[in-house]
């Protein structure tokens, strides 16, 4: 299936590595575009282009502060992606919870072996 050239949803918007960098930077707090330009080492027109895409899908919001435009992340718009991966992530969380139990037992077994004058390997 042909993909639309323009980005129409959060999934497509985060498929671009530079846009993910912008999202990560904004996850730490609101920033003006100059900050992002310096951080990403990209020309301002490129950064602005990415910001425009992110704004169109609602991932990023902007407000005027004096003469500056401040960009911030809208966490709620990441929810569709969050929901999408949640089941898969839950499977791994379940595996790891069980692995925790196995690891505790391994530690105890090792201690017992040490107590028995084992090699303590």
């Amino acid at each position, binding site marked *: 299936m042909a993909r639309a050239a323009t980005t129409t949803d959060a999934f497509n918007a985060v498929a671009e590595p530079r846009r993910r960098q912008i999202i*990560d930077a904004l996850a730490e707090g609101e920033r003006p575009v100059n900050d992002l330009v310096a951080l990403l080492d990209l020309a301002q027109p490129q950064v602005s282009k990415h910001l425009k895409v992110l704004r169109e899908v609602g991932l990023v919001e902007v407000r005027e502060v004096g003469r500056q435009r401040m960009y911030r992340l809208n966490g709620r718009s990441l929810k569709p*992606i969050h929901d999408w991966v949640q*089941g898969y992530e839950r499977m791994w969380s379940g595996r*790891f919870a069980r692995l925790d139990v196995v690891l505790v037992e391994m530690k105890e077994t090792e201690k017992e072996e040490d107590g028995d004058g084992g090699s303590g390997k």
Partner: protein
Amino acid sequence: MVAVASSGTAKLTLPADDQIHITREFDAPRHHVYKAFTTPELVKRWWASDLGEVTIAEIDLRVGGTWRYVMVANEGMEVAFHGEYKELIENERIVSTEFYEGAGPDAPPTVNTATFTETDGRTLLTVIVQCPSPEVRNMIIESGMEHGMQKAYDYMEQVAISLQA
């Protein structure tokens, strides 16, 4: 990288459109975590999560050696995966292919890299699942979604039963 989901302490990110990245810290030295990943009796105890039971875990732990896990899901369905070890550094790194046996004979595998890093007796596990295409990556995540939904339904059913009692 965008952290798109995190429940418990496992963190799942999607660093590229054909990758899945999972990290988790364990309160255990890395030789234990590595052992739990490479010993059949131990794999059997955790790999199925709470979705079913691992009935077969075969591990031929050498480069070029193969592994195969079979799980019987709680709903009775059998799912099997196998692959080959591509790189092994004891207690540090496992690179292996993974074929899902339900996907058909021509389906390409994912390449999974597990890295174990120890700091102050705790181990950070990183698993990178490199998929042959974005479509396969999405299918893998959606298969998890089904499991997740199934679990949700199971819990709902339990709640409903307890309310009747």
